[in-house]
């Protein structure tokens, strides 16, 4: 019975991937991967998604700790706010970012007065990715922290360790697997980000055209070119995912 459900799910996920791979020639994929336009898009995707993941981990960790450990009035609302970008269509997220940080946006107007505009820059790409991907990291990290036995933390505090020291020596190491899965989820969501990016950052080669946007742009000509690019991204992401998982598995085994 279990196997039946697993096979249904595996087929559902695998069939589209296999269908896509069957529809492209490996020579085309190889040639596309070497073209300068694709390299630029891939490089931009890697740079922006890594920056996003780093930012989300840095800022998201304290937020996750805060959500896991503190109770306060209106926490339910704050919880919902953190999860909001997950339920929002990314295009709506992009529009919201424009309303806030665009040249005529709430905060964007003030930034514009200082002579800087965020839309149409690589920073805008990172912001769009962060908006969409941060909740994935925060939720995973928070779940990990909530699973840490409180008596261990209390013991550490009783023995004289500060809160920060307790976090660094007890809470974080114990929730390490949850954090790494959060990082992977966050990175995956960032590198696949499309809707918020195209709305907020625009679509220009080298500056804002990440792989998903390059795929959309290629789709304007012929579906096959877009398929080839999709396979390039697929192979790339798969390799990164697999190596990350293997690396983490080895670390966990030690």
């Amino acid at each position: 019975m279990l196997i039946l459900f697993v096979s249904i799910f595996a087929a559902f996920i695998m069939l589209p991937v296999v269908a896509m791979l069957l529809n492209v020639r490996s020579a085309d994929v190889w040639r596309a991967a070497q073209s300068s336009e694709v390299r630029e898009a891939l490089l931009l995707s890697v740079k922006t998604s890594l920056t996003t993941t780093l930012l989300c981990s840095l800022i998201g960790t304290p937020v996750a700790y805060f959500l896991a450990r503190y109770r306060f009035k209106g926490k339910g609302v704050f919880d919902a706010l953190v999860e909001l970008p997950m339920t929002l269509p990314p295009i709506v997220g992009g529009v919201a970012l424009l309303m806030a940080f665009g040249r005529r946006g709430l905060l964007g107007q003030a930034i514009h007065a200082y002579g800087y505009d965020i839309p149409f820059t690589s920073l805008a790409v990172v912001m769009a990715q962060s908006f969409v991907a941060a909740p994935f990291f925060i939720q995973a990290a928070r779940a990990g922290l909530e699973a840490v036995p409180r008596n261990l933390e209390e013991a550490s505090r009783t023995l004289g360790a500060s809160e920060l020291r307790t976090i660094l020596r007890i809470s974080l190491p114990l929730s390490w697997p949850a954090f790494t899965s959060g990082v992977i989820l966050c990175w995956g969501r960032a590198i696949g980000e499309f809707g918020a990016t195209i709305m907020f950052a625009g679509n220009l080669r080298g500056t804002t055209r990440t792989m998903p946007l390059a795929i959309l742009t290629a789709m304007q000509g012929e579906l096959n070119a877009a398929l080839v690019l999709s396979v390039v991204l697929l192979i790339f992401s798969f390799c990164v995912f697999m190596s990350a998982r293997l690396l983490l598995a080895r670390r966990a085994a030690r």
Partner: protein
Amino acid sequence: MKLTRDFALLTVALLTFSFFGCARPNKTVMGEAKPAATAPKADTAAATGDLTVLAAASLSKPFDDLGAEFEKQNPGIKYKGSYAGTQELLAQMESGAKADVFASASEEHMSAAVVKKLVREPKAFATNSLCIAVSPHAANVTSLKDLAKPGVKVVVAVEKSPIGKYTRKVLDKIAADKGFGPDVVKGIKANVKSEETDVKLVLSRVSLGEADAGFVYKSDAVSAGDKVRLIEIPGELNVTASYPLAVCATAPNPDPAAKFVELVLSQQGQDILRKYGFQPPGPKK
């Protein structure tokens, strides 16, 4: 427009989420919607007497009016307009999307559809020309030359779209013109901040004030009203965009489709198009 965007989004989402064994439930629902997106409205169109019209993004406003008029004249038939870049519509038809009428913003894309046997007997029904839409906030942009000034933010459409092709033709003419020359075009190209998939997106970047100026059809600038200012492109530097439409080869509802084409070509249809800044079809070349 929405359909294509969703389709692209789904492709990307599916791609990335293929790897997440633990994808969120809502993403799984999105994944399931994919087969429906590739073959939209295939069954419902024939069963309920819908008229599905795929039309270039620039036609959205007059075609909504034409659709309402068509519903009035043909009770029981529901008009369903789907607007996007012509090149996106063509790709949808190629991958099996069922539609009754296809209206293109360029003869080139229509010819491609004829060659691929997707449509029958196209008829030219309108022409359009290009102009520059300028944000009301961009006080420093008052002439074509101003687009080349450093710091001006310009938006164009992707090269594969009709408006993108026309835009590049106009830029070539500007480069060859004695009054402007290649340096002006070089300056304009350096100011391009984004390439959009259809003309309405170019227009919205400008009307939102994120970009200072964009190359659009005159009809778009006219129907945008006071949301944008308009800079004319002189006749000798401009191009004529010719719009053909045709009944689709596999139209689920061929008779209403033919009637719709008639309506667009009729005086009443032409008046609606004129209201939105479109010009009458030119003489046959």
